[in-house]
């Protein structure tokens, strides 16, 4: 049986197809202004990429902020449950998941039996999220994909103390004006995210093995900052960005 998970987030829409515990393929598109449309588009792109007809697909589960707008889905499940299921599928021993997505970050504590013990999410502010990084990339005129590598070249990470995205952006702009190296500013931004997210994860119980999921996991600088703050190695799977969609597909198949 083929099951599909569709994760419509605030920035990107992801879809993954699973068959008997095997990932058939996945797709990522930008969400744009219409979550329902994005859900359908990424579903169709996935079918084309995997080369299967829609009628061969069994259960479809939607997740993410747009989960209730995906009309092809049979069920909506929150991204907390889906990320937990996806992470456990990739490493059954995992005890803590940190997911940083476009508009929120979350920490999920798992018990030994594959169940969620507790979770915490960022407060209403965007600091410590993908959107925060996007704003900073714009201010620094750097392509977001280059953020990770650039930050590794920092010699003295700058201090970014503001808890608010708007104020942090002003801080970054004043650092630029002072002539601070971009690498140091970017490393400072990653550190501020690391500090914020690890503090949140400690509330639910930071534990090893710790896995990071979500699109921001592709940024090696954030991963390193999390490791430094958590004092634990952070596992990142190559499917980090589509982890929520994988979890949703697994839940659809009754395996999540």
């Amino acid at each position, binding site marked *: 049986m083929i099951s599909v998970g569709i994760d419509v987030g605030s920035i990107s829409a992801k879809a993954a197809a699973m068959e008997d515990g095997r990932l058939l393929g996945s797709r990522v598109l930008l969400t744009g202004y219409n979550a329902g449309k994005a859900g359908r588009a990424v579903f169709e792109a996935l079918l084309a990429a995997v080369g299967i007809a829609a009628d061969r697909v069994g259960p479809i589960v939607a997740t993410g*902020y747009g989960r209730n707008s995906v009309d092809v889905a049979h069920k909506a*499940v*929150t*991204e*907390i*449950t889906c990320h937990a299921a996806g992470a456990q599928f990739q490493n059954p021993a995992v005890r803590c998941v940190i997911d940083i997505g476009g508009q*929120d970050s979350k920490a999920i504590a798992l*018990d030994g039996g594959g*169940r*969620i*013990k*507790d*979770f*915490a*999410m960022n*407060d*209403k502010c965007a600091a410590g999220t993908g959107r925060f990084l996007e704003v900073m990339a714009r201010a620094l005129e750097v392509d977001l994909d280059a953020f990770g590598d650039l930050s590794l070249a920092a010699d003295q990470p700058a201090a970014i103390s503001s808890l608010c995205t708007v104020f942090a952006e002003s801080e970054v702009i004043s650092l630029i004006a002072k002539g601070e190296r971009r690498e140091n500013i970017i490393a400072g931004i990653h550190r501020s995210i690391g500090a914020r997210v690890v503090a949140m994860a400690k*509330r639910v119980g930071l534990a090893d093995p710790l896995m990071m999921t979500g699109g921001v996991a592709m940024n090696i600088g954030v991963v390193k900052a999390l490791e430094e703050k958590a004092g634990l190695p952070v596992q990142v799977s190559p499917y980090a960005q589509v982890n929520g969609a994988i979890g949703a597909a697994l839940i659809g198949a009754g395996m999540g």
Partner: protein
Amino acid sequence: MPSDLKPVDAAKDRRKIKSVRRMKEIMTAYYIDAKTASDTGKKVAWITSGGPVEPLIAMDVIPVYPENHGAMIGAAKMGVDLCEKAEAMGYASDLCAYARADIACATEDGGPIGGLPRPDMLICCNNICGTVLKWYEVQARYFGVPLFILDTPFTHTEYSPAANQYVRAQLVEYLSFLETHCGKAFDRDRLTEVGRLSVAGQKLWQAVLHTTTHRPAPMSAFDAFFHLALIVTLRGTQTVVDYYTELLAEMETRVAEGISAVPEERFRLLWDNLPVWYRTRWLAEKFAGHGACLVADTYTSSWCGAMPYLDESDFLGSMAEAYSRIYINLGTDLMADMVVEMVSTYRADGLVIHSNRSCKPYSLGQYDIQRIVQERCGIPSLMIEADMTDARNFSESQIETRIDAFMEMLATGCSPRSRPFP
């Protein structure tokens, strides 16, 4: 289809609490009485929600509550407009939304009831927060009326004899303040009678809240938020005793007939902090959609929580302790003890904590309470960030995700208590 031909949802109709109608009549009559006080020669005192109202009742002064009004403003979704007006007057957006709404409303007689009646005096008790001191000072200057401040020391770990003496002395001053501004002698026998009615009202209110220990619960915290208004505003009157007697009888009937607040009660949750007034229906439906009933809350139970310290035979003497030891005037450990006790009494499967941007003293220590409850009761908790009256602090999709995820977690059996009924 014309509305009179709409099919009647019999089950939904059965779940409706019939006393609501009577409650609305009483509150309407109360506000009419207050708003026409200057015509009838009665005096009006504005008083804080945790303040000692009984001496006012004993002196035939009509008590009016800016906080009850703040709740009405919130429920009428008029909070944002009034808060913005207060901000334009120079008040910080970090200030309590009740304070902002009240201060702005006083200048234009706005809000759902065209403003509160002009006060003849203000009674401010800081057992609920420190904001009320400045808020009432502002209003005393604005209206040019006398202000009485009752200072109740914070109960960190225990209530000391010195604190008791200090508050008792102020209560004596309170009575002479009333004598001065009402122009008549204080009738202590009348206070004894009002005190008796106050205790009777609180006992009944507690009994009403206690009916939700039954599974399934005949009412939810969302109902309690509504029915609370009387024990706050008219405590010490026969009206309150009569009303809660009626409400209690209705709840007992519902228990006997198996009428529940939530159609299929699967989960029982405890709510902490004030309601989100402009979103009570959305929240009630959201939780009910998951088969969850908010069976109790720390907020509405505050108006009967200090009863152990009240002595009917020495009401004036025991008031000091009872008014000092209300929930929000306690240290975090004492608050946590009460929450733990409530989890056990109401057999709660989870705790829902409203981190209320407006109410700092209520929201301070919530992470600790969350941890203590987790350790001592083994139940999970959810924190929702919002505000009681300023809707600009409510983010629907974020809150929806948190609630949905929390309910998914409970449904997968995270908590040993969270099993479907029966």
